[in-house]
């Protein structure tokens, strides 16, 4: 894992001290709320419906056991004993007192964490494939590059006051688990036929009010040029991006208005001017950062994984868990384990402090001390021996963490919605709960198969509803909650924005409407292997609309 260098330590310490001073001055009345608001936002502090919310950066979703224990400890001592993992691979605490903020940030700094650039019009926490460095289908680990970009973008003076926020995602596999095409910049690390690494660079994707799929500006950029190229993109955006209208200020609007060709030309021009100069990442630096992300010292294991095989034969619950929540690993005898934070009827993405402690312990004991946060609001142990899985599973059962639903209809993404968020139009979590209760039967879920259901409480789309196979958007209609369904969205390499099915549904109707969509799919799929998205792409929206609105 990456460890802070001198510079990182210093800037986090300085910022923590500076913000502590600002909090003191706010509490004493020296600073007004108008003066203080931008300062607190620069440090990840929002004021939500019930309290202050603190958003903590988890760079590219990677945590050590020590860091996760610290988060658990903060939840226990300063919050209501739980935290919420978000679609940006961050952690949010919902019940924090402003007066406690300085102490919390100082404690986070002890474990090399902070809340800088988790808010505001800057380059936000860089996200990455949550299976990075582990997945069997990966070409190269994207995290060293996410780290290099993090270092370049941290407190970058030129890019601290952009027209609007800016999000970067990196993947190292052709199978996109990081939703790169709906980011301001999306990077796919790949290898050419000469065996050199480089990036396909996508620009101008995003969700929110105006969802857009990114345009690919280049298919292969030598890896050492990535900072110069990103810098060129940011320069074009900083200069040309709109500042007059917050709804038109994201780079996606600029790319849309300029057109792909013109955008590419503008970026290439800036790039030509800075290429080969100070922003070229030197090979020794690439090697130095890569060393932090070297594969763990894998333990010897029997490739036949006898314990794993026997447990599956003996225990059907374990077999179903292994089938859904374990993904192939690069290393024979190992697997990538998804720990679902989506128990039936529970709020998606929440974990109690003792659950966090348990997962930290498991990571330490069985998982080379590493944990990942997925943008799907689950936690991942990226490197576990398959033969250790039965023991891990037993512990997860005790902790209420063994839900075997990864990638199934109850593995729902939901934003905090109107239960917590000041911007919300409608609640998200109760809808997620009711849907997961309706589909609680695991046999039925497994029969339905892969299905991504995503819920947002307003058009800001933090719940990624635009790229849900089934998306749900909460709207307010004359003071009543209504829910609009979109169909056929996808955040992977076949990225698509979901199409609105038709008029919205009341809170009472929405679960039934989802069931109607699912039943229509089950009726019309050609084989059980044809998943929901494939069937929708073959059939189009008509049969679903007919079932929803005509029948």
């Amino acid at each position: 894992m990456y460890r802070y260098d001198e510079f990182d330590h210093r800037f986090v310490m300085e910022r923590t001290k500076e913000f502590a001073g600002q909090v003191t001055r706010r509490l004493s009345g020296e600073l007004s709320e108008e003066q203080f608001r931008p300062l607190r936002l620069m440090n990840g502090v929002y004021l939500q419906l019930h309290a202050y919310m603190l958003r903590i950066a988890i760079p590219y979703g990677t945590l050590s056991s020590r860091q996760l224990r610290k988060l658990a400890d903060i939840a226990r001592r300063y919050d209501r004993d739980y935290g919420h993992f978000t679609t940006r691979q961050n952690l949010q605490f919902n019940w924090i007192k402003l007066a406690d903020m300085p102490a919390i940030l100082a404690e986070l700094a002890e474990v090399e964490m902070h809340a800088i650039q988790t808010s505001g019009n800057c380059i936000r926490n860089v996200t990455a494939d949550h299976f990075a460095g582990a997945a069997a289908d990966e070409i190269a680990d994207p995290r060293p590059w996410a780290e290099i970009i993090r270092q370049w973008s941290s407190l970058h003076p030129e890019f601290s006051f952009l027209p609007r926020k800016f999000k970067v995602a990196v993947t190292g596999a052709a199978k996109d688990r990081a939703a790169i095409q709906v980011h301001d910049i999306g990077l796919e690390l790949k290898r050419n036929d000469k065996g050199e690494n480089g990036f396909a660079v996508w620009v101008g994707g995003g969700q929110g009010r105006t969802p857009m799929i990114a345009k690919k500006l280049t298919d292969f950029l030598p890896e050492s040029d990535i900072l110069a190229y990103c810098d060129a993109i940011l320069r074009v955006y900083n200069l040309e991006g709109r500042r007059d209208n917050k709804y038109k200020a994201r780079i996606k609007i600029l790319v849309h208005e300029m057109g792909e060709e013109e955008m590419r030309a503008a970026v290439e021009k800036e790039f030509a001017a800075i290429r080969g100069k100070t922003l070229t990442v030197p090979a020794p630096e690439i090697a130095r950062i890569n060393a932090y992300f070297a594969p763990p010292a894998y333990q010897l294991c029997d490739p036949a994984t006898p314990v794993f095989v026997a447990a599956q034969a003996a225990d059907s619950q374990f077999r179903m868990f292994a089938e859904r929540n374990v993904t192939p690993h690069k290393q024979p005898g190992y697997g990538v384990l998804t720990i679902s934070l989506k128990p039936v009827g529970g709020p998606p993405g929440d974990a109690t402090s003792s659950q966090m402690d348990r997962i930290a312990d498991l990571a330490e004991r069985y998982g080379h001390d590493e944990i990942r946060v997925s943008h799907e609001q689950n936690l991942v142990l990226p490197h576990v021996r398959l033969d250790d899985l039965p023991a891990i599973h037993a512990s997860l059962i005790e902790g209420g963490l063994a839900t075997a639903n990864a990638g199934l209809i109850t593995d729902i993404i939901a934003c905090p919605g109107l239960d917590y968020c000041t911007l919300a139009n409608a609640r998200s979590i109760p809808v997620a709960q009711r849907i997961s209760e309706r589909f609680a039967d695991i046999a039925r879920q497994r029969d339905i198969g892969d299905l991504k259901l995503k819920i947002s409480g307003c058009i800001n789309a933090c719940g990624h509803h635009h790229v849900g196979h089934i998306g749900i958007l909460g709207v307010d209609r004359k003071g009543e909650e209504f829910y609009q369904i979109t169909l056929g969205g996808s955040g992977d390499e076949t990225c698509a924005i979901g199409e609105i099915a038709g008029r919205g549904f009341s809170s009472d109707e929405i679960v039934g409407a989802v069931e109607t969509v699912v039943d229509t799919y089950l009726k019309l799929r050609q084989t059980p292997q044809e998943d929901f998205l494939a069937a929708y792409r073959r059939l189009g929206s008509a049969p679903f609309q007919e079932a929803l609105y005509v029948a």
Partner: protein
Amino acid sequence: MAKPARNFEAVVASANALASGAVVYRTAEGSWSPHFKDALIARSKSEAEALLAAADGDVKATLIVELALIEVALEEGVAPRPRSLRERIRAEGPTVPIPQDPQPVIRT
């Protein structure tokens, strides 16, 4: 007490406490309570204006932030409640349970 003007919605003054962020309501005594039931209800435009002006002093005194008047539903025989769902959630807390650890599993 002034007669309620037609079309006037009864309101209370609400805010977040500066130091804790907690939701609070202005009481008849001029203090702030975490309980909606303690809120002073303004039933006319002039009462509402007076309530807001008094409460605003505490914004300046850096006790509270995000001060707003919120509409209250007054119905015969039922306790007053905020009219909008958003304000009911602020008053009563999230409509979903706070996550808790599972009960210990008894293994067979």
